[in-house]
């Protein structure tokens, strides 16, 4: 009897999960359709996708050969070397391609950590309130009040950074706090709204209120912040690379810039070399901004135009 009950309960839970999954699937599909109706979103997304493709397939097509070729240093751009070569005769074009993957990996990991930590803590803090809120906010404020960049440098000096993942962890430790605060504020104001209050009158569960009523309302904000977190992570990682504190990957764009810089900028040829990764960073940043703006336009109801 009890067994049967348990079984029934299990199948019920399973069907519930299946229902939620199909629900989520349908709304994701609908969301995507809506999101990609915006020109800015498409543009930004296309550029980002281009970088992703470059990161995946670029090294296969244009493998990077790190060996030096002193006979061909500082070559001007040609068909063979589209970006020319550097002071050791290595191909700059292939260097930039080889570095794309690490740059993207850092951006992606870091954005995930930032958004997950920031959102979870923000929602918990905003929804539960009371002493939980006070503790989380105290921690958040500590992270917010200490300037991040010197800490990156400090941490990078203490911890050996040798993978994109470790660099991403260091960057996100100091970047979730802002997001956490703003998610918390949004949840707090949503919590007072009539449609959440009515849930209490109808005895809806906390899980339902958080996941099905509150979350969808902050989803767009989180999506935009994900893109912005990627942008910030690239800024921070290039910064750290630029000062040579995470020199594990010489092809990372920041590392290329740093190497060219240390070679001396009096030599105009070093500036040429430095330009290529710099321009890539700029294009990447613009793409994230355009994408974030596009997402904002489609997802933020306050900006909705007829």
């Amino acid at each position, binding site marked *: 009897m009890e067994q049967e009950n348990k079984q029934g309960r299990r199948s019920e839970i399973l069907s519930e999960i299946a229902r939620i999954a199909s629900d989520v699937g349908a709304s994701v599909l609908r969301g995507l359709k809506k999101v990609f109706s915006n020109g800015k979103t498409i543009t930004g997304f296309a550029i980002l996708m281009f970088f992703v493709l470059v990161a995946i397939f670029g090294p296969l097509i244009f493998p990077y050969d790190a060996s030096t070729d002193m006979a061909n240093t500082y070559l001007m751009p040609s068909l063979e070397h589209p970006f020319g070569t550097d002071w050791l005769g290595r191909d700059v074009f292939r260097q930039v391609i080889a570095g794309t993957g690490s740059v993207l990996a850092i951006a992606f990991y870091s954005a995930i950590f930032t958004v997950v930590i920031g959102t979870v803590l923000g929602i918990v803090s905003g929804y539960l309130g009371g002493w939980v809120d006070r503790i989380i906010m105290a921690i958040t404020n500590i992270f917010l009040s200490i300037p991040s960049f010197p800490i990156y440098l400090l941490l990078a000096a203490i911890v050996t950074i040798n993978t994109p993942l470790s660099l991403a962890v260091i960057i996100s430790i100091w970047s979730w706090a802002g997001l956490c605060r703003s998610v918390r504020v949004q949840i707090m104001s949503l919590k007072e709204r009539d*449609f959440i*209050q009515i849930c209490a*009158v*109808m*005895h*809806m569960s906390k899980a339902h209120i958080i996941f*099905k*009523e509150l979350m969808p309302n902050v989803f767009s904000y989180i999506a935009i912040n994900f893109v912005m977190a990627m942008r910030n992570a690239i800024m921070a990682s290039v910064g750290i690379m630029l000062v040579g504190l995470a020199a594990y990957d010489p092809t990372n764009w920041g590392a290329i810039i740093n190497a060219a810089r240390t070679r001396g900028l009096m030599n105009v040829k070093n500036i040429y070399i430095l330009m290529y990764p710099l321009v890539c960073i700029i294009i990447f940043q613009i793409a994230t901004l355009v994408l974030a703006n596009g997402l904002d336009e489609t997802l933020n109801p306050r900006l909705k135009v007829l």
Partner: protein
Amino acid sequence: MQTQQMQTESAAPLMRLENINMVFKKPGSLFTDRNIHVLKDVSLDISEGEIVALVGESGCGKTTLGKIITGLYRPTSGDVYFEGERVSGTFDKKLSSYNQVQFIQQDSYAALNPVRTIYQSLYAPIKTHNRKWSKKQIDGRIEELMGLIGLQPSAQFLTKYPHQLSGGQRQRILMARAISLEPKLIVADEPVSMIDVSLRLSLLNLMKELNEKLNMSFVYISHDLSTTRYIARNGRVAVMYLGEIVEVGNIGDVIAKPRHPYTRALIQAVPIPDPEYKGNDELPLRSMQLGSLENRGDGCAFYERCLYSCEKCRGKIGFVKTDTADVLCCNLENVPRDPVYDKK
């Protein structure tokens, strides 16, 4: 205050509020909190199938009282009884019967989750309270509800988001959601104040219909006596002023022959949709200044504005039973008895 409860001694009313007080603390100066006394000694009975209207100006505490009835607020002191059983707040898991009170909010746009479809908004509460139901059963129930509130064909509305519906349609959805859990009592807080005039009556008619068909009790909260009279035709009205009920009685009687000085002013201020009634321009009020809710004493809240105030008004005052209503006034013999609006 006892007078109101005497009548219903025999059968327990659906809901009984006894000496409800609600005090909000607001940070004042450095060492003292300011006590905002939003409700003071409010007692009210609501019987099964009855429509009770709460009427008063903004800030009189009618919405706070409504939230106490629905369990959203816990009163500072006083007791709430539901079907004779003492309850205190929604989150009290033991008192699942309290679930039988539902709420319809004023702003139909704010009351629906903007990113969820109407179907999702209706589905969730039914599922929560009928765990065993299959999707098909719930769909059937939703279909039935949509028929009840007159939104047909339902498929046309269920897939929409709140902003794609008109105010009147959204307000109907709120009603469907409220009745979906088969409550015994629905609190409706200014349900038509944001609705276009030409659609108001149909919503009020719908509420009356639900009241009659399903024998649901309604607490209708409004500042508009005209719509209140329309919906609560045979019900009772409780006129509130600064957190107190000052007059409670049959709505027809109270409007025709208001007895409390405040009720008289309130009714005289209501414009009549007929240019032949120009009415009396001067209201029977001493001042326009609303009293303070802070640190209240025993005396009459209406004292400063009342034309008929006397020395006794400073002390504790109680309800007086007249032939039409219970009136919170100590000097009733000096208040005029004539109706505010004569026949033309």
